[in-house]
């Protein structure tokens, strides 16, 4: 049990170290990059909402025919 907990602890420690290492983006943030990343965020959020909507509506349709 302890070995499993240690394994998880090491894993999360590694993730913390990676987050620390890449905390600051190395690329110079130009206007083009800011706009591109913003549009990408909006696109991904919209697609995620559509995926969830389809999933939930499919499940609801199966439960309440």
């Amino acid at each position, binding site marked *: 049990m302890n070995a499993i907990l240690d394994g998880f602890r090491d894993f999360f420690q590694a993730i913390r170290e990676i987050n620390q290492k890449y*905390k600051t983006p190395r690329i110079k943030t130009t206007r083009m990059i800011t706009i591109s990343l913003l549009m990408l965020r909006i696109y991904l959020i919209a697609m995620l909402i559509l995926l969830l909507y389809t999933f939930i509506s499919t499940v609801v349709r199966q439960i309440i025919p």
Partner: protein
Amino acid sequence: MNAVSRLYYANRRVVKFLRLLAMIAGPGILVMVADNDAGGITTYTATGAKYGYALIWFLVLLGPIAYFVQEMTVRLGAVTKRGHAEAIFDAFGSFWGWFSIFDLTLTDWLTLVSEFIGMTAALGIFGIPHWITTVIVILLMAIMVIQGRYWTWEKIALAFCIINLIYIPAAFLVHPNWSEVIRVGWLPHFPGGLNGTLFFFLMANVGTTIAPWMVFFQQSAVVDKNLKEKDIPWSQLDTGIGAFFTVVVAIFCIVVTAAVLKGVNIQSAAEAAVGLMPYSRYAGTFMAIGLFDAGFLGAICISLSSSWAVGEVFGWAHSLNNKVREAPWFYAVYFVMLLSAGIVVLIPGAPLVTITLFVQVAATTLLPAALVFLILLLNNEELMGKQKNNRFQNAVNFTIVIGLILLSTGYSLTTLFPNWLH
């Protein structure tokens, strides 16, 4: 001087060129041929059965598109000496880095399941039980990676690429009307007008030509092969040859089904292979062998693209030149992906159709992210130096990326809401 020496002396430049190409070629041909994976073959057979030869011109157009996207990964890998995942972490920070890793691992695993579906269905035609196919595939893939040399792995994988050409003799066996193939296939047109069904087929073909795993795989392979900036022209040639073969295979695959099964509603390539059997036993057999090989090639590349990416980010040893004991986590990720995907196919009543559908949605939805990062990185002078995209490359690549984003979004929407275009 004997005849052989004289021949060598007369053609020494050609021999030197071919020798260099044989040394450097690999990642480009592999990624492009593996692009015609089980899902890809299913799309081509369905396209041939539905529209005959009419969409061959569209596949010809997809060749250069695939080349221009993949060529960017060559330059990025050779210049930065980093895989795509690590490059995203470094350039855009940990949020986008984790997003990319999650995106890649999810789509890779789902695609890997679809490769196993294709492989088990292909060998199932010959009466081989699914579990035996799964065990054989896992063993073969284990033998390929644990020998501890990238070069050997690559050459074995390239041998499997040659089997992918089996659709060429299969096409000759079904005796298509070649003048019709040229007359109908090479003239750009939309059969029956640009309606919802045709749009869905066009987008499905685009979706099989460019996938997020390809971007990650080729960049990591370029790094693992230790290709340098001076090797970029050779790697570009390697990618160009691969793009040529991927289109050739796709065209011949369409010719096979268009000649025999036009008008038949094909749901999978295995179904097409069975449908071909009464007409030509050899053509049907070749189709089944080709499907198995396509799934196998896809599986060997996809499973590696994830383990390379995770290894890069976690800082583990992550080269095929490492033995298992030198890079245990790299191989652990590889085998966990492989085994879990193989097991899913063996679960009785597993929702394989839903998984196949979800693979298409996930891959095409997440493709824009991979392409946006790629084009931003290739425009960074500090990172790329003189290998930065020039005006021509930017004009071509921006057009391709915007086009692909629109088409892949349309494809996702069509899959999620099948009636929106009807």
